[in-house]
């Protein structure tokens, strides 16, 4: 005995069937969302966390901020087109970092003096060297305007192409290239000044 698909069923039956099919579809959607979300976290978490660090957040604050960025993505998942997850996360991270820095400045904290990074498998001396390098880098980046700082981080640390940077910043490629050129010149100048002021620290990093 089979259900005749051509027959018109009683409205209650039709409604019940629709209800159950919706339930099944919802379960499948939930599973698909979670699968996508897992992949997004695995692929982009480190990128976002490093970005937040170089945008001036302490390691502990970067932990919280990165979590906040991914919670925003979780809430907006339906609106994020497949393939544009990194752009969305980048935009959210820039905004979250700006807010976190404002909050930190209100608390009169020095964002550069945090050294609670992970350094698994490193010799204490290597860790000290890395800590110093990160501190100097943050000090130098702090002197750049935000838009130059971001393109320099994306180009030199994340090693993205200019076209990719332009897409993330949502600016023309020419603008991104121009900003990167100015960022590199400004960074070189600041590094020179830092070396002149304290040649041992700047040169030893």
């Amino acid at each position, binding site marked *: 005995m089979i259900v005749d698909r051509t027959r018109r069923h009683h409205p209650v039956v039709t409604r019940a069937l629709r209800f159950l099919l919706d339930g099944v579809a919802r379960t499948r*959607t939930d599973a698909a969302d979670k699968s996508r979300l897992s992949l997004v976290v695995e692929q982009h978490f480190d990128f976002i966390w490093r970005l937040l660090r170089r945008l001036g957040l302490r390691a502990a604050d970067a932990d919280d901020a990165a979590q906040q960025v991914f919670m925003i993505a979780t809430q907006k998942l339906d609106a994020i087109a497949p393939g544009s997850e990194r752009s969305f996360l980048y935009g959210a991270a820039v905004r979250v970092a700006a807010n976190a820095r404002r909050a930190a400045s209100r608390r009169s904290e020095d964002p550069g003096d945090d050294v609670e990074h992970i350094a698994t498998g490193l010799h204490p001396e290597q860790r000290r060297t890395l800590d110093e390098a990160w501190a100097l880098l943050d000090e130098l980046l702090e002197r750049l305007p935000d838009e130059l700082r971001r393109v320099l981080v994306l180009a030199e640390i994340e090693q993205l192409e200019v076209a990719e940077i332009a897409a993330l910043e949502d600016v023309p490629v020419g603008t991104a290239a121009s900003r990167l050129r100015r960022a590199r010149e400004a960074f*070189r100048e600041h590094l020179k000044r830092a070396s002149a002021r304290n040649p041992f620290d*700047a040169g030893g990093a």
Partner: protein
Amino acid sequence: MTEREPIDDVADELFAAARRERPEDRVRARAKQLALSARTGINAAEARGPAAYAPVIAVAVAIAVLAFIAAGALRTREALEPIAVTPEIVEHEATPAARRTADRLEVVQDVPLSVEKSVQPQSKSAPRPQPSLAAEIALLDQARSALSAHESARVIALIDQYQRVLGGTGMRAEAELLRIEALAQSGQRARAAQLAQRFVKEHAGNPLAERARTLAKIEEPAEDSR
């Protein structure tokens, strides 16, 4: 990436050091866990109200439907069990072809039928099994097999069962003709001829009437006429 001219050696070292920095694994794992939990909450909230329980209800209904189908199969099997037939009659299962046909067909309405005066009245307290075209086909298929095997008593018992238990609807004429053929085969030619004549009268337009006409002309057994 396209190779860029380094800013200077120190800058390159600083950038390389920055690339070595990464979050702790537990931080990444916690962010992932929180995101997945939050997404489940969002999807459940979007479902709103009782619809959130739809997946659970869907499973429960699926189990109920399976139980209903199993009960239906059991009932059909019971309907095909032999009822007060002679001891030598042994009930057989329907042929696989008939079963396959049965699986594709819908239930048909129960239409009372009284062809044979010898049919036992149905007990009012015992509910009559729901007849189905599938069951009719299965039973008549058995009767036809029995006729081919010259088991005329079994044929008659099966046709009795067909009329008593299933009621017989669309295949009533075929059932009657099988009875007539079984009677003729068993040597009760006078009775077969009598029923065949009645069949021809009642089913004049039926294609089976031609076969009945032939049977209606059956004379008494040769040894009787001699």
